[in-house]
């Protein structure tokens, strides 16, 4: 019997798997609930509650469900639970309904087989299903949790504070924001490590988190502040665990307004490709990685990291070259640079405020004067996202939750088509029609190799256009006791069934 005491900067916002599509909550609940498919130890998509699946036709998928699986309360898992759960996740009050937008219907073939029909061919349906957790229909109905929480509801939401999944761990006790205790599910169908109890504590303050690890009050902390890596490395009994994360950081430039905002400059310099290139040359991503990120990041050549579908290995990054940047600016008609305002969050990404500060001083060296507005995410996002897109120069980052670059094209890079739900995060307003055409084709191409090629080409076009200045792929940095043996995924999931305490 081993206990894992883990701490993280946030807590799961709810135990209801469909009410908040927030990655930490999803990954936390993935230890309690399970989906039809999931990523295995090697980050490959594998069956979880579905044992096998086949594509009956381009729009129909059939899943054979796993036998002998029970929920934590002992009731058996069957196809009605899957249908119930998928419909629940598509309900009006669910936060997953856009993820399942391609699903047209779910039907039970028999007790242990379900069929999902999509509106159009969807090559990445499995990716879409990754975060979709299956609940027990009877349990949900008995406790009035047929729908993910409705904020206008009068009654209390049972499913927000209680859970009944099929996963390797069940909830023993939960005090939100304070402490959650999980116990190993003795009837778990799959293999799992030797951890029988998990005590999870949220610790918001980074320094406190580190000290909890150093004083060995917890065995695993996530994330570890970068500046504390040397300290943890030099301490006895603890170690630093890190690996690349699927999050890429970018700097964005307004390419849609005729007049950039919050700047004294006339017109919009960014409409000139040379200015965008100049910025890319002026911003030393290497220096930011080395100094701000303490080396815990890898240089980005493009807008996704290498494990994501559509990553183009042939692309290179414009090198740091302030001289070249100045020349380009002069050619574009700004020999003395210009002045503009940058928007930046301070509490959303790893060292986001500091990255922006470094950017400001790097740009200052080529004559660009930047007024930095660094603000908490609660102010930052409402300002910069749709419908206002109220910024002309900003720091942004994206993780394609499906690990597929189509997700990036549709949300961040593709031409804005807000009515069809496309490009709502394309804050820079960049638009490369050729790339749009390629990605549209990729969206319905079922052949993986052909699809990959289409996406890679689209990526190349985007990079050529300097749609955004890519900075780096950040590292997932955790601190752990020596005795903890763990697996890190680029999406920072923490599948505890693969963990061991020696």
């Amino acid at each position, binding site marked *: 019997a081993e206990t894992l005491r883990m701490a993280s900067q946030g807590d799961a916002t709810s135990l209801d798997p469909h009410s908040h599509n927030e990655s930490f909550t999803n990954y936390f609940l993935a230890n309690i609930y399970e989906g039809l498919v999931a990523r295995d130890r090697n980050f490959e998509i594998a069956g979880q509650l579905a044992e096998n699946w086949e594509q009956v036709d381009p729009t129909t998928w059939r899943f054979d469900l796993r036998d002998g699986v029970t929920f934590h309360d002992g009731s058996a898992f069957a196809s009605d639970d899957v249908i119930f759960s998928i419909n629940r996740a598509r309900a009006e009050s669910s936060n997953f309904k856009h993820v399942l937008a391609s699903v047209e219907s779910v039907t039970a073939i028999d007790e242990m087989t379900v069929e999902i029909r999509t509106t159009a061919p969807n090559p990445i349906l499995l990716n879409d299903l990754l975060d979709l957790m299956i609940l027990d229909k009877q349990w949900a109905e008995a406790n009035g949790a047929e729908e993910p929480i409705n904020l206008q509801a009068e009654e209390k939401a049972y499913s927000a504070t209680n859970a009944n999944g099929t996963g390797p761990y069940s909830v023993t006790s939960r005090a939100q924001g304070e402490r959650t205790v999980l116990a190993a599910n003795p009837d778990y169908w799959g293999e799992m490590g030797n951890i029988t109890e998990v005590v999870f504590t949220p610790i918001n303050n*980074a*320094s406190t988190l*580190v*000290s909890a690890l*150093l004083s060995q009050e917890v065995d695993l902390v996530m994330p570890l*502040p970068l*500046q*504390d890596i*040397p*300290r943890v490395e030099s301490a006895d009994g603890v170690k630093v665990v890190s690996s690349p994360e699927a999050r890429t950081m970018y700097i964005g430039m307004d390419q849609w307004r005729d007049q950039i*905002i*919050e700047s*004294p400059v006339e017109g919009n310099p960014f409409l000139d490709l040379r200015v965008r290139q100049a910025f890319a040359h002026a911003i*030393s991503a290497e*220096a*930011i990685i080395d*100094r*701000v990120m303490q080396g815990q990041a890898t240089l980005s050549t493009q807008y996704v990291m290498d494990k994501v579908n559509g990553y183009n290995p042939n692309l290179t990054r414009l090198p740091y070259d302030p001289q070249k940047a100045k020349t380009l600016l002069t050619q574009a008609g700004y020999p003395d640079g210009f002045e503009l*305002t940058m928007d930046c969050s*301070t*509490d959303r990404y790893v060292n986001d*405020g*500091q990255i*922006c*500060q*470094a950017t*400001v*001083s*790097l*740009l*200052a*060296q080529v004559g660009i*004067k*930047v*007024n*930095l*507005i*660094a*603000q*908490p995410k609660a*102010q930052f996002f409402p300002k910069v996202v749709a419908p206002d897109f109220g910024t002309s120069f900003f720091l942004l980052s994206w993780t394609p939750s499906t690990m597929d670059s189509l997700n990036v094209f549709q949300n961040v890079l593709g031409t804005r088509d807000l009515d069809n739900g496309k490009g709502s995060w394309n804050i820079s307003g960049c638009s490369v029609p050729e790339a749009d055409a390629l990605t549209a084709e990729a969206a319905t191409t079922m052949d993986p190799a052909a699809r990959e090629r289409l996406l890679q080409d689209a990526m190349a076009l985007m990079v050529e256009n300097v749609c955004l200045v890519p900075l780096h792929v950040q590292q997932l940095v955790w601190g752990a006791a020596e005795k903890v043996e763990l697996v890190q995924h680029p999406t920072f999931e923490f599948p505890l069934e693969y963990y061991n305490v020696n």
Partner: protein
Amino acid sequence: MLIRIKSDFWYELLRSPITVFSALLIILMVLACTFAPWVAPHTPFDPATISILDNNLPPAWQDRSDPRFLLGTDMQGRDVLSAMLYGGRISLMVGLGAVALSTVIGLTVGLVAGYFGGLTDAILMRIAEVQFAFPPILIALLLNGILKTALPADVFATAAVPIMILAIGLAGWVQFARIVRASTLVQREQDYITACHAIGLPTHVTILRHILPNVLSPVLVLAMLQIAVAIVTEATLSFLGLGTPLTEPSLGALIQAGSQFLFSGIWWVVIFPGVMLLMMVIAFNLVADWARDYLNPRLR
């Protein structure tokens, strides 16, 4: 006394060397901060002059240091000494400004409420209660939001310090008002106030010239502590992303940012600004202690 000093003020002041020392320290720090652009070796608020490659250098007497940076550099590559002076200027403005604001409001409200009592008192104290429910963060958010819509962007960019002063000042006046009111309630029943009535002094004169000096002692105590509190609150707001701009950190913001480096051995980014703040606060309090004694002739 061999040297004849006319004024009581100077005489009493010179009799207390520790006060003189504190006062000089304050003057020195205020001057150094005010004239930071001329005194400081670097211009840390100008991003063009700082290089990220110089970051986290230790103070000049340690290994691996760079003689250009006497007290080392921070994570952005800013000279710590210069940043302290520039930041000190902001912190002093915020601290003194906010305390001045809350003292003025608090004194006025407290004196009026305590002296008149009754309905006036009830209304003012209920307003104070409403105000007290709002921590500085929320007030800062409100001001931030209102001013952002009301002011053009370039004006707004320079509004951080006034916003901090207003937010912290507004959040702080309630304390003064309550304490002043309490003392006023006691003072207004004293005979010397009846004597003022007998002379026919108008209310404001009675309040300002007679009650005020007699309730000032706790106000001074509180005000001096509040200077520190205001500076620290501003730092806390920076911590929550609302304070001074990241590129122009106040002393408190420096400490806040530096405190994250405590474990990593980069102590100079927090210790030097911290010591400066501490010295500033202690000096202010020592001078205030003296001033309080001076204001009470029986304590001289």
